[in-house]
């Protein structure tokens, strides 16, 4: 059974796959540029000292995203 939730809810150390993107326009383009397309595996690696942003492992790169951006990335586990 697949759970669907937004990336900011992904616990540290867990992986999920991109289901869809909620953003539009430039923002969406930026996320696509990171390789965040349907089916891409994302792993939550580490929180910053204040808990936001969070670093994710995406296609071989470590990318930090702020909470409000991660919120717009829908993933399935």
């Amino acid at each position: 059974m697949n759970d669907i939730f937004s990336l900011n809810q992904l616990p540290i150390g867990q992986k999920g796959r991109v289901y869809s993107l909620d953003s539009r326009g430039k923002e969406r383009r930026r996320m696509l540029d990171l390789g965040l397309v349907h089916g891409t595996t994302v792993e939550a690696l580490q929180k910053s000292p204040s808990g936001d942003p969070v670093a994710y492992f995406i296609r071989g790169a470590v990318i930090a995203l702020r909470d409000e951006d991660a919120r717009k990335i829908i993933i399935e586990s």
Partner: protein
Amino acid sequence: MGLTHQSTGAPVAHGELRMEKKSRNDRVIALAGNPNVGKSTVFNALTGMNQHTRNWQGKTVTNAQGYYTHRATDFILVDIPGTYSLMASSAEEVVARDFICFGKPDTVVVVADATCLERNLNLVLQILEVTDNVVVCVNLLDEAKKKGIQINLQMLSEQLGVPVVGTSARAGVGLTELMDRVEEVSFRRLNTSPLPVFYRPEIEKAIALVEPAVEQTVQNRIDARWVSLKLLDPDESLEESLATYLGRDITKEPLVKGSLKKAQRLLREHGIGPEELRDSVVSTIVAKSETIYQASVILKNQEYNRRDRRLDKLLTSKATGIPIMLALLCLIFWLTITGANYPSQLLSDLLFGFQDQLTQWFTAMHAPDWLHGALVLGMYRTLAWVVSVMLPPMAIFFPLFTLLEDSGYLPRIAFNMDKFFKKANAHGKQALTMCMGFGCNACGVIGCRIIDSPRERLVAVLTNNFVPCNGRFPTLIAIITMFFAGMVALPVQSLFSTLLLTVVIVFSVAVTLFMSKFLSKTVLKGVPSSFALELPPYRRPQIGKVIVRSIFDRTLFVLGRAAAVAAPAGLLIWVLSNVMIGEMSLLAYCTSFLDPFAQMIGLDGVILMAFILGFPANEIVIPIILMSYLCTGNLMDLENLEQLRTILVDNGWTWLTAVCTMIFSLMHFPCGTTCWTIKKETKSWKWTALAFVLPTVSGMLLCFFVANGARLLGLA
């Protein structure tokens, strides 16, 4: 020289990257790649090989070009800003895209990071859509090997249809082969057949509708298929660049316009709107990258980046992230302060010893007093101060800072501090540009190009000057050492100075954040836009190289600037102080004119004038202050740095003057170079004026409150 970029057939739409061909046979090579892939190292390794390197500022924010000769051909290597994709969103990416697409380089070398190849292939595939003349340089092979990442270069080359060369640029491995392939591709002796990327059938049909019309219009000046695809996915900045490049707007040509309409109707009928089109295009490229990556890379160790993750846990976790950041800052300052002491004293002894020698020579030659005064006491002495007081801390701080930068730590600082920047309504990458400001504010301002939202980029540009650059650190260090280090016992003095300096820096960061917030609530209203911050793999910096190069470069640079600015300024001060109008010298007139106002903000006329004269280069502020005090009468011999304090105290300095001078040093108008850079980057006098006024007025206000507060409380 002499040939413009137009006449040599390498037109550049933006005029941002201009190159000088020495002869028509020169080949132009564009060096592209994602950020942090060692592009600069490849650049330096190639151009350094034949000693054709230009004075080059070390980091990717400025576009550099260099020359190298290989098998009797001259190559012009253009280092273009690092970018993840050609679907540009930031100003830097536009520059990169325009050069690759419209700069008509003979060959594009795409540098890719062997430790993170999949992500890099995205850009490679996009560039292959634009041009056939590509050589892929898989760099950092040594790092990859260490991590157990095995790359089948042969396979990669077969898949991509262009030559692939593996390099470890830092060790100089693979560069000859790279130059061979580049030469072959540049002279079209090696035929490339780049892998075509095919999109879903509906999109292919739409492209097929537009392509013949575009082809007829653009002929073979640019890849028609690529242009067609881009016209279907409208992008204002690209269309603008395309129109500039072609000299007309092809979307207005009836043939193209008609076919575009048809194609768009076709897409709509299949339910493909602009968003779906882009999603599908990007997904196709990403999927292709994945396929190629899986076919050519073997991970011998699935946990290959465990060391990086461990380091990240240590350097960015809740418990240790910020304490370690502050400790590192302290360490750098401590090394700078203690390390500078000895050479500073040595240089001072040497240079002022030589001054006595000069004086003797002048006396022996029976040179007139005014000549000795102007040249030795004016020019030479100011120069000597710049070199002995300012140079050593700069020569130590700069390489240390560069080491930190090269190791990949700066993005971690941005990661740690992002919450503060978010609260200040600023862009997360402003932490990075702020850090660049510690090296040089002008570089920091150029660095703001990495911020793609115009509003946040302006906030970052306008506030960059609130952190002290390499040229202002020595001023702060000198004042702290002279006025506050003495408050504790000798053995811990340098430690105490370090702590004070750290407090001063933390204060400057706080001011930056406060001002960013202030701008975001007033003239630059808005909320932070989305951003993605890459935390690149840690790299062992090339300690020896960095130290040698930055000491050498910096030393020469500072000496040059000192000669250019400090010497005339010293001469000016001497002349002003010796031209008398009635009882008073001109200098006294100037300083006493400024004095009432300066006193109000806790300074004095001399200090304020020194800051004004220091506009071309902040390094000369302290030397000018000393020079002015000495010229106004009580001339004395300076045996050591201790006595500098005496000069200041004799001229009425108290701890409050010291504090206000430090505040004003942190918060006053940017130096000439920075102002000029801000004008260039913002293309607006209005914003440049604000960048000038904002720190000056806020600095004066703060100094006013501090000075008068302290006076009211009877503290000073």
